[in-house]
């Protein structure tokens, strides 16, 4: 990091310690794996998951180590390797936004209400529609959730293990990608909000709030797949089409 003055361009930083642990052969294999991963991720606009990478790289390659190396290499370049949920993607560096946003495609603007609902879903997920309405103190207009799902930033996640088993909403990898977040814990102000007890459904008596789940795909303890729903309670009919 301190030798930048000697180089024309921002140099690679080499982690000497990790380096020392690997023998030359291992290093070569890792270097080549990193090169391949670089080509694959660079070639794609969408984030590439580690699983997808593993299936394309030679067997036995430590994908995580290769990506860590690559990320370090690109850390100070005009293009960065970023983690998006469990995927990796190359994105132009954030500090060059001033250069880039002249190409910006005019994006559909979300209404204030939709943005608010989006923020609530992001910070409170998994969250039900009733909870969103409780936080906003107003009914959610029918088109709002629909619009958010259409952007592919929001999805239905599962069902809450409470009477009526309401559907829970959460954000997607596309949401993380769009807002340049590695994971949901990186949401701005997440820690403070949590600390202040403002991410709970009810006023917390002790003001200590559990951490939100870091893995978006895992159902939380009070979320449950629908196994033994009382049909009549939900007012739904069983699928029975009779032949005539």
């Amino acid at each position, binding site marked *: 990091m301190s030798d930048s003055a000697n180089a024309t361009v921002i140099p690679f930083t080499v982690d000497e310690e990790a380096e020392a642990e690997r023998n030359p052969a291992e290093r070569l294999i890792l270097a080549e794996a990193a090169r391949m991963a670089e080509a694959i991720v660079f*070639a794609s606009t969408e984030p590439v998951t580690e699983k*997808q990478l593993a299936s394309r790289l030679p067997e036995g390659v430590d994908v995580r180590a290769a990506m860590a190396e690559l990320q370090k290499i690109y850390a100070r370049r005009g293009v960065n390797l970023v983690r998006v949920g469990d995927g990796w993607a190359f994105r132009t560096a954030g500090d060059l936004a001033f250069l880039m946003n002249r190409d910006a495609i005019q994006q559909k603007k979300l209404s204030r209400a939709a*943005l608010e609902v*989006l923020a609530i879903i992001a910070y409170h997920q998994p969250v039900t529609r009733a909870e969103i309405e409780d*936080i906003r103190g107003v009914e959610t207009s*029918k088109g709002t959730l*629909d619009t958010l799902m259409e952007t592919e930033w929001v999805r239905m996640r599962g069902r809450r293990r409470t009477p009526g088993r309401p559907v829970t909403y959460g954000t997607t990898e596309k949401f993380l990608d769009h807002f*340049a977040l590695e994971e949901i814990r990186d949401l701005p102000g997440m820690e403070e*909000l949590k600390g202040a007890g403002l991410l709970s459904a009810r006023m917390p008596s002790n003001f200590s709030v559990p951490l939100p789940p870091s893995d978006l795909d895992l159902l939380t303890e009070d979320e449950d797949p629908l196994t033994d729903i009382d049909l009549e309670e939900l007012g739904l009919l069983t699928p029975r089409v009779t032949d005539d």
Partner: protein
Amino acid sequence: MAETLESRAGKATPMDRLWAENDDSRGVSEPTMQVDVAGFEGPLDLLLHLARNQKVDLSRISILALAEQYLKFIDSARAIRLELAADYLVMAAWLAFLKSKLLIPKQPGDEGESGEELAAVLQFRLKRLEAMRDAASRLVNRNRLGRDVFARGMPEMVIIDKKNEYSASLYDLLTAYAIQRQRQAITNVRIAKRGVWSLKEARDILTRLVGSFKDWTALDQFLLAYMTTPEERATAIASSFAATLELVREGHIEMRQQDAFAPLYLRSRAPAEKAIEGAP
């Protein structure tokens, strides 16, 4: 008869509603949603606005003063006969209750939460809403993909999970299902509900149709497209005939019949075409 038409004119006929639904008026018709008391989105939003006007930190705000301001606001809104959504009135009632709790010290035998506890809950809700507002604005001001930060412009490969040659999202699936079931349900409703044709319905149908018939056309033909079951024939013909007479009287169409019980022929009156298009 004119009166009946007048009084019904405001309401959409079942047919109109069907068309409206086909046009996909999502959200437009949700009554509570359009409440826009001077631009506020619900009572909590209004309260938050009033609280901000106290220009102190939300934790040090006077809930009593806030409740009073809110009630005053609601009173003045009602004074100018502004129609308020139930939400606002429910909140008003609750705040009036809170106010009384705050003013009267808790009695030894009192059940339930104290005024202070209720006030704290309200304070919490306001803070939480404000926090989400701030979070939303911080979120949209981040570097965003496609605006500040960009992906590879010339992708060389689309990474596909080998097992998934086809793509579709849950949203695609649900949308397809909902649209198709809705379409079908609406068709069914039309069949189920149209036991009787009202005069209004018949008139609307005729008004829509008549412009396309420049030549003499038998009344039956006008109705063919709408007659789904034989049971509806009688009511459809009766109502359309009455509607036809009205339209003739108003000069939109012409009508003729050779003999008694012979088919009725209709055609649009050329000069009046514009008027028909402008008709409701």
